C-alpha cells in the first residue's frame, strides 16, 4: 500500500491534505491512490449547502459544525469558490467564517477553486470527498460556490441538499422556476431577522404544497446564523432527512446511481485516453485537420474513418485497460 494511504488511514492530517492536492492537480499517482482508498469509502454522509453569493452558506456551515461537534461527530468540509476564467487564480475565502474550528482536529476544512468547472463544484470535489470519507469523517459538508439559478451539480453529489435563500429574493414566480428551487431537500431562509422573511417563507411553502407526489416534503427553516438562531432546527431537519433517506431506500438508490456514474466516467476516461494515445502514434492528425479545413473532407466521416483505422474496439476486447 502506498505510504500516503497508510498514513491517511492512520489519521495523519498532512497525508489527507497531500492526497487532496494530488487529486486536485490530476497528478499521475492519483488513480493509484484512489484505487487504494476506495475500499475505505462509502461511510460518510454527504450534505451539500448551496445558495446565492452572500446568502450565508459559510456562516451556516460554521454554526452547523458546532451542532455536529456537540453530538461528537467528525466532520470534513469542502468549500468551493470560483476560479477566475481570466487569470486562473482564485480567492478562497470561505474559511474566514470557520476559523474558530481550525484547531479542532476532528474537523478538516479544505478550500477548492472551481478550476473551470461550471456546475457549482470544482472539478475534483467528488474525489476530495472520497479522501475525507476514507479519512474517517462521519459527515462531509460540501459548500458550493455562490450559485445563480442552474448550477445544480451538488444534487448529484450530496445525500442531502440544503438550499440557502435570503428574504425578499424576488416575487413568487421565482419560486416556481426550474433549477435550484427544485433540488432542495431542506430550504433555509437565512438572515431571517430581515423584513420579508415571512413572505418568502410563505411563498416557498406554497410552491412546495403545489407538488402532488408523496415522499419527502422539504421543510423551510428560518435561521439567523450570526446570532446562532434556528441552527438547532436545521440540524434536526438534516437528521430527519437522513433517516427518511435511509428508511425509504432512497439513499441506497442514489448511491447506486452515483457509483454507476463513476463507472461510466472511468470507462469513458480510459477509452478516450487509449483512443487518443493511438491516434497520436499512428495517424498524422495535422494533415487530417488541414484536409477538413480545406473542405476536402468533413469532420463526421473523418472521425468514423479514424476509428475504423484504429480497430480500437477489437483490440480493446483482450486488454485490461
Amino acid at each position, binding site marked *: 500500500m502506498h505510504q500516503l494511504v497508510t498514513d491517511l488511514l492512520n489519521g495523519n*492530517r*498532512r497525508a489527507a*491534505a*497531500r492526497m*487532496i*492536492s494530488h487529486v*486536485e*492537480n490530476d497528478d499521475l499517482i492519483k488513480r493509484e491512490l484512489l484505487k487504494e482508498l476506495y475500499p475505505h469509502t462509502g461511510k460518510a454522509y454527504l450534505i451539500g449547502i448551496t445558495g446565492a453569493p452572500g446568502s450565508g452558506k459559510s456562516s451556516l456551515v460554521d454554526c452547523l459544525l458546532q451542532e455536529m461537534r456537540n453530538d461528537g461527530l467528525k466532520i470534513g468540509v469542502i468549500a468551493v469558490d470560483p*476560479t*477566475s476564467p*481570466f*487569470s*486562473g*487564480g*482564485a*480567492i*478562497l*475565502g470561505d*474559511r*474566514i467564517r470557520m*476559523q474558530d474550528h*481550525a*484547531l479542532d482536529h476532528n474537523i*478538516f*476544512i*479544505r*478550500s477548492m*477553486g472551481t*478550476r473551470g468547472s461550471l456546475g457549482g463544484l470544482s472539478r475534483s470535489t467528488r474525489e476530495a470527498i472520497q479522501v475525507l470519507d476514507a479519512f474517517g469523517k462521519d459527515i462531509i459538508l460540501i459548500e458550493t460556490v455562490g450559485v445563480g439559478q442552474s448550477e445544480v451539480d451538488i444534487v448529484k453529489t450530496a445525500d442531502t441538499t440544503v438550499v440557502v435563500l435570503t428574504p425578499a429574493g424576488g416575487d413568487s414566480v421565482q419560486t416556481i422556476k426550474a433549477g435550484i428551487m427544485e433540488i432542495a431537500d431542506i430550504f433555509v431562509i437565512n438572515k431571517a431577522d430581515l423584513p420579508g422573511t415571512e413572505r418568502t417563507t410563505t411563498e416557498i411553502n406554497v410552491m412546495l404544497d403545489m407538488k402532488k407526489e408523496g415522499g419527502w416534503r422539504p421543510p423551510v427553516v428560518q435561521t439567523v446564523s450570526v446570532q446562532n438562531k434556528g441552527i438547532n432546527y436545521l440540524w434536526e431537519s438534516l437528521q430527519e432527512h437522513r433517516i427518511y433517506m435511509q428508511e425509504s431506500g432512497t439513499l441506497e438508490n442514489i448511491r447506486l446511481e452515483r457509483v454507476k456514474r463513476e463507472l461510466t466516467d472511468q470507462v469513458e476516461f480510459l477509452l478516450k485516453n487509449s483512443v487518443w494515445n493511438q491516434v497520436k502514434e499512428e495517424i498524422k492528425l495535422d494533415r487530417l485537420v488541414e484536409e477538413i479545413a480545406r473542405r476536402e473532407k468533413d469532420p463526421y466521416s473523418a472521425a468514423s474513418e479514424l476509428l475504423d483505422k484504429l480497430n480500437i474496439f477489437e483490440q480493446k476486447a483482450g486488454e485490461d485497460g
Partner: protein
Amino acid sequence: MNRRKIRVLVAKPGLDGHDRGARVIARALRDAGFEVIYTGLHQTPEQVAETALQEDVDVVGLSILSGAHMTLVPRIKKLLIDNGMGEVLMVVGGIIPGDDAEKLLKEGHAEQIFTPGDSLDRIIGYISSKF
C-alpha cells in the same frame, strides 16, 4: 497540461485589525493566477499553521502591522516545521524595521520580507520565481 496551481495562504496573525494591505496582495496574487486562501483577521500562530497544513499551501504570506513580528514569525515558522511543512515559502509583509527584517531572514524564520514601498510586481515576481 497547465502548470501546477500554486496555493498561497494570506494570513493576519495577532492583534492587528488592518487588512487592506493583505486584501490588495490577495487580489493581486489572484490576478497573477495563484489560488489564495484568506483567513481573515486575528489568527493565532496555531490557526495559521493548521490552516497551512489542511490547505496544503506552497506559500505562507503573513501580514503584520502590529509590531509583534519578532514573536509571531518565528513561532509560525516553528509550527510549520513541526507539521512537516518546513519547505513552505514564508513571506512576510508589513511595517518591519530593517534590523528586525535582517534578523528574521538571517535566522531562517522567513524567506523574504516586504515593507511599505515594495511594488506588487516585485512581490509577485519574487513568489513566481520560486516555482
